């Protein structure tokens, strides 16, 4: 029903832009100083574990939309900053995955023969390894290295850990992309239009950049938008396990992990789990819609 309403009023892009502006405004607000520190990391045990409300005991604030956590931090601010971290890790990891997968897949599909066979066997072998375990190994190894290095500034350490995390997620998610892209390139190569391009004297490089690449652009975009949510989910999962983004930096995964422990038979502080999870779900839906719109823009049949 909601989908039909959106289709009728053609307002997906408007909704998306509004959400984006709201999120950026929220991010600026969350990162801004307020008396005793930046809003997303300032603690106040006096107001710990408050449920969401318009009126709040949080000092100098009018409202706390999502309530507060065990240390009295504003959950809304933490969700927004955590979201910024989760999304940027997701997008960066997806970008790495798509770039690597597209390169690998197109080269394999385009060269064909023994090159193709060798490259695809590499993918098969990597496919056989459990992906999440690889990510865990890479991140743990890097954080171990960081411990041994003489890097004393904590922000730099955190940054290196985050980069290692997104590289690791990117490095395990390119396999599917490369397979799909290779299949596309193979089927394109046998199309008469590619033969026709050869008969007018188009060289290998031009054939690749002017005929194969534009034709698979739609697929690449669709896969990129599919990979972003997957990467966000992987990040959330790892942070949930405590391997990804670590406290005091928030991310949707570790916020949800914190929230889960507050949901039991004695008390149910539901907002701590629900808010980050709802934000993940909304983001994934929005990204999928955006991917669809992009596809319409790229595919000549919808133009």
């Amino acid at each position, binding site marked *: 029903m909601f989908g039909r309403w959106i289709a009728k009023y053609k307002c997906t892009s408007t909704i998306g832009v509004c959400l984006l502006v709201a999120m950026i405004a929220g991010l600026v607000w969350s990162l801004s100083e307020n008396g005793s520190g930046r809003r997303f990391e300032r603690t106040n045990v006096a107001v710990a574990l408050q449920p969401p409300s318009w009126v709040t005991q949080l000092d100098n604030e009018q409202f706390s939309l999502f309530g507060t956590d065990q240390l009295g931090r504003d959950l809304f601010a933490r969700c927004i900053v955590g979201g910024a971290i989760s999304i940027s890790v997701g997008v960066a990891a997806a970008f790495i995955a798509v770039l690597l997968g597209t390169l690998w897949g197109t080269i394999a599909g385009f060269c064909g023969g023994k090159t193709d066979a060798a490259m695809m066997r590499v993918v098969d072998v990597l496919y056989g390894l459990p992906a999440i375990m690889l990510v865990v190994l890479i991140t743990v190894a890097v954080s171990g290295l960081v411990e041994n290095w003489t890097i004393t500034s904590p922000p730099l350490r955190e940054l290196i850990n985050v980069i290692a995390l997104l590289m690791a997620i990117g490095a395990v998610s390119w396999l599917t992309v490369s397979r799909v892209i290779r299949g596309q390139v193979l089927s394109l190569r046998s199309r*008469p*239009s590619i*033969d026709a391009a050869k*008969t007018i*004297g188009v060289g290998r490089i*031009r054939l690749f950049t002017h005929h194969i690449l*534009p034709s698979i652009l739609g697929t690449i975009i669709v896969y990129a938008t599919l990979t972003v949510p997957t990467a966000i989910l992987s990040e959330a999962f790892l942070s949930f396990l405590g391997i990804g983004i670590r406290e005091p930096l928030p991310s949707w995964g570790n916020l949800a992990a914190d929230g889960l422990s507050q949901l039991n038979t004695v008390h149910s502080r539901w907002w701590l789990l629900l808010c980050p999870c709802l934000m993940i779900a909304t983001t994934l839906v929005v990204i999928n819609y955006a991917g669809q719109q992009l596809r319409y823009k790229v595919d*000549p049949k919808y133009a």
Partner: protein
Amino acid sequence: MLDVKNLRISFGKHVAVQGIDFSIEHGGSLAIVGESGSGKSISALSILGLLPKNATVEGEILFEDQNVCKMNNIQLQKLRGKKIAMVFQEPMTSLNPVFSIGEQIMETLLVHESITRSEAKQQALLALEEVGIPKNRFSSYPHEFSGGMRQRVVIAIALACTPDLLIADEPTTALDTSTSLHIIALLKRLQQDRGMGIFFITHDLCLVSSIADQICVMRSGKIVERGETSMVLSTPTHPYTVALTACVPSIYTKRKRLPTI
């Protein structure tokens, strides 16, 4: 212009073309007629050096006294489109769906001639006009055209660089009868205007009589009969040609069961 001598093409042990000879003069037209799998299309592709990797080619294909078989990739790229152009059977699939037709006509020109995009556009518009497509369709995409118009676009692409030889591999098979007559008339007019050679591949004997001066009848990789089109069609000598011409239904005689080959 084109001189093919003792051409043999084989895939592993299977010999698809078993030593054929033919030649085409400037402004001449040759049709190769034969059933599916007789080696017509493979012979045509070998002229452009476009055979699959597992094919072995023996014999000589001389185009303007240069052996096409011995050319490297770069020489072949300069030949394709510029000197020898090809029109494929399926206009539905031989156009790239993601580019406008204008873009695709311009591509031939941009690949082969050192001209700017605006000059290429001018020439492409002329080429469109020549095949009878209005200029305002320049930026339309292939799916917005009918089959006959797409085949005209394919012909415009092939003719953009004014090639010396045009290979037409069953250009009208995917089209209906009236459209195919238009296409044939168009090809014939362009051939006469430009003095271009045409190598025509078909299994439609009616079309052959209207376009080609010379005809070769092929069967299982061999040329079984050749000569002036009118002579071969009116007084065929080889049993296969006799059978082939007998298979064409006529509107003048009483309807009866057609013979089989």
